[in-house]
């Protein structure tokens, strides 16, 4: 079973350590839009990374996290066979929009992240851009582990980057009753999701590789609902959870921490609670459940790896941060132990990270302390 040798992320709060601090302090990184923009989009706020309005900005963040994670793990891409799998929800589609609105050139090869990664990591063997919506990072992590398990890479990096697009904001605003001001995962009065900028990188290596080890990467389970393009399906979520447990050879009752997908939408949060009930609680498990999007927004394809980075920091210090933005939990969360207001102490133990994307694409990762 491989290990995670390094991990970092970049969010509206800054790097992984700053993001962790903000989460444990219960801070919300939402920045309100100006009134004209809010009215036009029917979206109240975003969770931006400061200074990020240039073309190619998602690629820039990707390079930042990739360099940091690779340095942390001591990866030498000239000596080791390194493959990078980039998960992204919205690619560089923000640049296509900019091109459509202002005729600014948008080179088609910059829509994906191949050249950015090659420049950041000379010697890298292969790069694949996986556009798997809001669970892209989880799917990238599954592929990275499969590559290491198959002996096809000495080191595989699952990375992710996403920047807000106007088109996706428009879809959020189109279905909102009123502009959402902040994301409130699992709250009874949640009003919907908001997008955040984000990037993350997780270095996966065989257990025998010399160097740091943050956790054992047990497994990532995958499934597709094959039911509806935009509405989640409990059956698809539970299949991904069970696939992960089966691959990891662990029992649902042993899951102690869940970093939930928790988007603060009408549909995801009750469905995710039901899936946690059906798989973990029904097996007599009683994990602490947290979610990040109230603090950092929905970082789209980066969300899963942002969750993994937080889970790894939690394993190290033995704590789970609270669900920022949660006041009164929704009825479906009855019996689900949501972390409220302040961090809880949980000795490092089996941790599950959920990600569920548009199109019903589900990825569930299980991590354990590296012992």
């Amino acid at each position, binding site marked *: 079973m491989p290990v995670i040798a390094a991990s970092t992320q970049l969010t509206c709060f800054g790097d992984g350590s700053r993001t962790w601090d903000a989460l444990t302090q219960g801070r919300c990184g939402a920045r309100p839009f100006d009134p004209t923009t809010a*009215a*036009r*989009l*029917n979206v109240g706020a975003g969770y931006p990374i400061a200074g990020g309005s240039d073309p190619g900005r998602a690629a820039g963040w990707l390079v930042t996290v990739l360099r940091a994670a690779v340095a942390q793990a001591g990866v030498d891409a000239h000596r080791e066979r390194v*493959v990078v799998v980039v998960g*992204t*929800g*919205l690619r560089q*589609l923000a640049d*296509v*929009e900019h*091109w*459509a*609105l202002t005729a600014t050139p*948008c080179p*088609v*090869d910059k*829509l*994906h992240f*191949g*050249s950015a990664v090659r420049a950041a990591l000379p010697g890298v063997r*292969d*790069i*694949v*851009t*996986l*556009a*798997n*919506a809001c669970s892209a990072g989880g*799917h990238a992590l*599954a*592929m990275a582990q*499969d*590559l290491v*398990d*198959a002996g*096809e890479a000495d080191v595989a990096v699952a990375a992710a980057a996403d920047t807000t*697009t*106007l*088109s*996706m*904001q*428009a*879809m959020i*605003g*189109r*279905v909102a009753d009123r502009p959402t001001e902040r994301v409130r995962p699992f709250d009874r009065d949640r009003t919907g999701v908001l997008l955040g900028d984000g990037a993350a990188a997780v270095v996966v290596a065989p257990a025998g590789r010399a160097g740091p080890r943050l956790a054992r990467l047990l497994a990532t389970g*995958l*499934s*597709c609902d*094959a*039911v509806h*393009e*935009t509405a989640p399906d409990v059956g*698809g979520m539970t*299949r991904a959870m069970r696939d992960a447990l089966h691959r990891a050879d662990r029992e649902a009752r042993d899951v102690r921490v869940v970093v939930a997908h928790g988007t603060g939408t009408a549909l995801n949060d009750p469905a995710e609670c039901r899936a946690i009930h059906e798989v973990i609680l029904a097996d007599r498990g009683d994990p602490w459940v947290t979610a990040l999007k109230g603090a950092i927004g929905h970082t789209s394809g980066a969300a899963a790896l942002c969750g993994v980075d937080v889970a790894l920091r939690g394993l190290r210090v033995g704590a789970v941060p609270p669900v920022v933005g949660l006041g009164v939990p929704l009825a479906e969360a009855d019996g689900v132990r949501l972390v409220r207001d302040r961090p809880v102490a949980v000795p490092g133990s089996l941790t599950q990270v959920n990600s569920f994307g*548009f*199109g*019903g*694409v589900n990825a569930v990762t299980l991590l354990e302390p590296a012992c």
Partner: protein
Amino acid sequence: MLTTTLALRAWGAHLPESDKAACRPEAAAGLLGRKGLLNRDDATRLALCAVHRTLGLDAGERPRGDAHADVAVVACGNLGNVDTVADLARVATTDGVRAVSPLAAPNASSNVIASVIAIWFRFAGPNLMICSGATASYDALAAAALLLRAGRARRVVVVGAEAATGTATALYGRPLTSGAACVIVESDPDGVQVRLNGRVAAPAATASWGDCYGAQGLVGVALAADRVSAGRFPVEVSCGDEVDGYRSLTVHPASAVTR
């Protein structure tokens, strides 16, 4: 990524610009049936047509019953949803979000092709959308091989599509050919096979059907598989460009040993 050999269980190309038997995206209802096609972008329609024909379904026929959790989908392509994205950005900017159609939502996500194929044909295994530029077809077959090797699926439906819409062609900056292909793969090495050879310095040959960008390699494999099963000689296929590099694949006939 990895170099390996896959068994081709079925294949088919859908090239409306050069093949009269292949319907254009706007006429897809004749092949697929009308229900569920409204608001589908052209690339998704072409992908649906390629899978429909590869599965050997009758006109208007739709698979029913339980979804197959052991069949994965790996789709590839780069420009399928750029029309939707550009249009939404323009409308939202000039007229506000009340003027955009909520029915466009699935197309705003880049994985729309992969997820629609899963829903339409009832494939509930892992579902990937590869958007890695000119080598996307190769990367999709490599991802399929990885899913099979990791025991995540028994069979993988690999499908690639690009549509030469106004926005896609303008962005691409070179002549773009509308086209799609489907290749259904398993790991047992028998029957017609495709070998993934990895990186090469230059393309194998000029493609007679045009340039389908992210679907190019898969169209090449499907057409080569036709020739290989008729002529019993291996055919080399490639995809890529100067920026993304080139990848080579060889389609082999069933070997005497495994037949």
